[in-house]
């Protein structure tokens, strides 16, 4: 039995047309028309087979089955499927492109910054003992007086 989808996915159906900016904090499936921008930084954006997008897309992962005209920026992966059409520039860590897909633009692979290994707990530097300072006797007395 397939594992149920645990992530929430917002859907733009094929009869929907949106002009403007889309910002989502969950996965997004676009099967309609979008003109503007799509941002979903930590999530996946899928352009379905009926999707027609004229927009820049920024997401963790972008999967394209339909048509996109615009730049695509994915922190993890771009996946261009057979029969998809993408005209625009891609910046990503990894890319997959199937035979039959049409792509026109540039591909810039930015290797993801390796996550720093669990760093040892920072050692707190022991406070350096204060350097003895020669203070005039009168001044010391004054300070003590203030404390009181």
């Amino acid at each position, binding site marked *: 039995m397939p594992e149920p989808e645990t992530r929430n996915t917002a859907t733009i159906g094929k009869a929907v047309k949106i002009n403007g900016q889309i910002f989502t904090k969950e996965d997004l499936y676009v099967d309609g028309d979008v003109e503007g921008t799509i941002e979903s930084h930590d999530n996946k954006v899928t352009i379905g087979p009926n999707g027609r997008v004229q927009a820049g897309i920024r997401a963790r992962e972008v999967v394209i089955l339909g048509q996109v005209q615009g730049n695509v920026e994915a922190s993890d992966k771009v996946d*261009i499927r057979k029969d998809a059409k993408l005209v625009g520039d891609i910046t990503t860590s990894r*890319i*997959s*492109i*199937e*035979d039959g*897909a*049409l*792509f*026109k*633009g*540039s*591909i*810039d*692979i930015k290797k993801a910054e390796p996550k720093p290994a669990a760093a040892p707990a920072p050692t707190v530097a022991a406070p350096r003992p204060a350097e003895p300072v020669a203070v005039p006797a009168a001044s010391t007395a004054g300070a003590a007086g203030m404390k009181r």
Partner: protein
Amino acid sequence: MLPEKLRSIFRRESESASPGTSRPAGGGFPVRRSQKKDVTVTRQSRGLEQFFFNIRDIVGLSILDLAGASQENINFLTNLGHKVYSQDIIRSLDEAFGPDPAEQTNVGRIDYFLRTNFDYPPGTFDGALLWDSLQFMGPALLNATVERLYELMQPKSYLLAFFSSSDRAAEAPSHNFRIVDNKTMLITERDIRPTGQVFNNRNLEKVFGKFESVKFFLTRESLREVIVRR
């Protein structure tokens, strides 16, 4: 008596030189389906080897690949640390000019073709893999395209192009090219197309006359590989 190897080369040359049809007056052949479509062969390429030799030990270059986006080419080029500019120029030729090669003389269409496919700032590219695309361009389109490439390429950069070495062939197969390694590629025939003109060494030197140098590699497969230095 000729050795068998030499005879087989002559046989291949004569087969390619007489494709069974003649060029009709005033026009070209329509694009037709290749009987070898989807048949893939592995081939060594001196031109490809020379191209990658020229850019060895350098990363971060911008490479134009006109074979259409393929996983193999993208992986190979990006693993070398380069940025890839990809497009399927044969498909763009069909979109811009349709099936009639005579349309390749239409100034408006040539301008549209250049704007939709080569609209980059001057000096964008540090190398260009043109594969066999140029041989399907008529003289006017070819000259305009080469002129634009000259503007788009960095001085001292290289381009790689393939041309049919048969002076008499009026049509030639177009191919998909996939890079296996720095001197090996996979070639798959797409279709058979009218060639834009005859491409011999002298013509090619003329076509790339503005460039610094043109180097030819003649292969056994009726293919002339050309490395051009900007």
